[in-house]
């Protein structure tokens, strides 16, 4: 077991210890806070697959948070509360939208790719605002959380917490397998040196598109979790600032590292939480911190951890 794996295991054990600790100190707020952070960590790690490992600078990843959330919210609105169905739809719908956006945007490169992904997400954002039936820009309450036939009850904060943690761990493992598989080697190779990759016989497009779809589906599940967490559906989930936050989590945590997105999600959201308690203008403090991390920690926070060369 490498030292990095040990660090990751320690982080996950700490996360597992949060509910009993929060209960012991009678601080349920922290349970909610860490749960929210983990949901964003799931979204960030899905973005890390394409941004960190694939080199695709998607500035529209919040779209899938929104689609996942709407899949749950809209089904619930029509009285369909089956969680298996809702979450499956969240992932499938996100995958399909990612397929369309990816098919168009991945052919472009550089700034055009960034702008196309942003434009599509803004379209979805305004679509959410314009549909009055589902609350428009006011959003709407999620009356009933996703139901799992008595298997788990998301109304129980601790049970919900462990569901999120389990999904986070599962996705970390899936991601780890993925980036080290043949498939993962191709998308990393295409990021590292596209001309060489094409010259040895790989056409990167289908692999990148597949990665884009997988990342979209994973983020869609994060969206399904998020709406159950906030109990409120709003197009704000898809706001471009949300996409930016996800990018920051990945970049600050360490692009193309396993633990990076998790660390980045914690760092960004906890900083936000702490700083906003100090001043209403907390972003003035957060901004320079982000700049410093980007400038001085080349591999992000994960690069500061012990363990040498990062792979996946």
């Amino acid at each position, binding site marked *: 077991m490498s030292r990095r794996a040990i660090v990751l295991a320690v982080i996950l054990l700490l996360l597992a210890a949060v509910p009993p600790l929060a209960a012991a100190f009678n601080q349920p707020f922290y349970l909610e806070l860490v749960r929210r952070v983990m949901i964003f960590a799931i979204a960030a790690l899905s973005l890390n697959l394409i941004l960190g490992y694939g080199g695709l600078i998607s500035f529209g990843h919040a779209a899938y948070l929104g689609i996942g959330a709407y899949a749950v919210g809209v089904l619930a609105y029509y009285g369909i509360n089956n969680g298996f169905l809702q979450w499956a739809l969240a992932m499938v719908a996100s995958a399909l939208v990612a397929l369309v956006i990816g098919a168009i945007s991945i052919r472009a490169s550089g700034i055009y790719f960034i702008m196309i992904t942003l434009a599509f997400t803004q379209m979805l954002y305004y679509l959410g605002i314009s549909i009055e039936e589902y609350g428009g820009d006011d959003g709407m309450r999620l009356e009933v959380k996703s139901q799992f036939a008595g298997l788990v009850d998301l109304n129980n904060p601790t049970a919900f917490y462990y569901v999120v943690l389990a999904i986070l761990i599962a996705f970390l493992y899936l991601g780890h397998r993925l980036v080290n598989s043949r498939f993962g080697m191709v998308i990393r190779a295409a990021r590292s040196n596209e001309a060489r990759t094409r010259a040895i016989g790989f*056409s990167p497009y289908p692999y990148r598109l597949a990665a884009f779809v997988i990342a979209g589906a994973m983020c869609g599940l994060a969206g399904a979790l998020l709406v159950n967490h906030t109990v409120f559906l709003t197009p704000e989930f898809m706001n471009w600032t949300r996409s930016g936050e996800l990018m920051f989590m990945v970049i600050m945590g360490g692009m193309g590292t396993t633990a990076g997105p998790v660390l980045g999600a914690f760092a960004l959201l906890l900083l936000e939480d702490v700083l906003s308690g100090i001043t209403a203008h907390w972003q003035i403090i957060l901004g320079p911190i982000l700049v410093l991390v980007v400038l001085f920690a080349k591999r992000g926070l994960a690069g500061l951890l012990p363990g040498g060369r990062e792979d996946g």
Partner: protein
Amino acid sequence: MAEAAGGGPLLEVRGLCKLFGALRATDNVALDVREGETHAIIGPNGAGKTTLIGQLSGTLRPNAGEIRFAGEDITRLPAPARSKKGLARSFQITSIYRDFTALENVSLAVQAHAGHSFRFWRPARAERALRTPALAILEEVGLGARADVVAANLAHGEQRQLEIAMVLATSPRLLLLDEPVAGMGTEETQRMVEFLGTLKGRKTMVLVEHDMDAVFTLADRISVLVYGRIIATGAPEEIRTNPEVRGAYLGEEAAA
């Protein structure tokens, strides 16, 4: 797939033109590369050698003309498809995966020619089907002991060797080598020329090179490219004594 065995050239270029604005970087080039030969392309800086290689390997689209490989028209084929057909290229500026180990670099090249890569679960690093051939090729180019070194940490000459290893790992029928000894020291150059000598006859090679010792050691035939045009093609001795070539190119080299 025995088209070229009938005696026709493996690579056949006709009427190839590439324009960059008003500049004719490739001007009505015709070129035949026979199966098994080492065909050097020489010419002064800016003659259009790399542009020509780019069109042969599929990174650049010609404005006119035809490229046939093993009897098949590949003029419109993109680079990855040409690689699948057996054309492999090394770049003038070393093109490797700097953040991967030497073994991973070569394994990727093996993988590219081992079916599709929509395999999401097994770690590629542990796959014997990729490792074994990749290690064998690293041994062949003399990097066997350096397999687990991250490519960025290899010496310049070793990086050039690594790129050749990647080229070989695609089991090519034709190697397009763009200045394989560029930037190398005397000793490294000698080792590379020796190694390319061991490929001679076994592999068909197009060799773009400035190092005249390397060219005259390795080439069976030489084509001289000046201002985008091939002014002469022939055996090394013919080229050495060709007055037009001496005037355009070798003369200045000899004087220097």
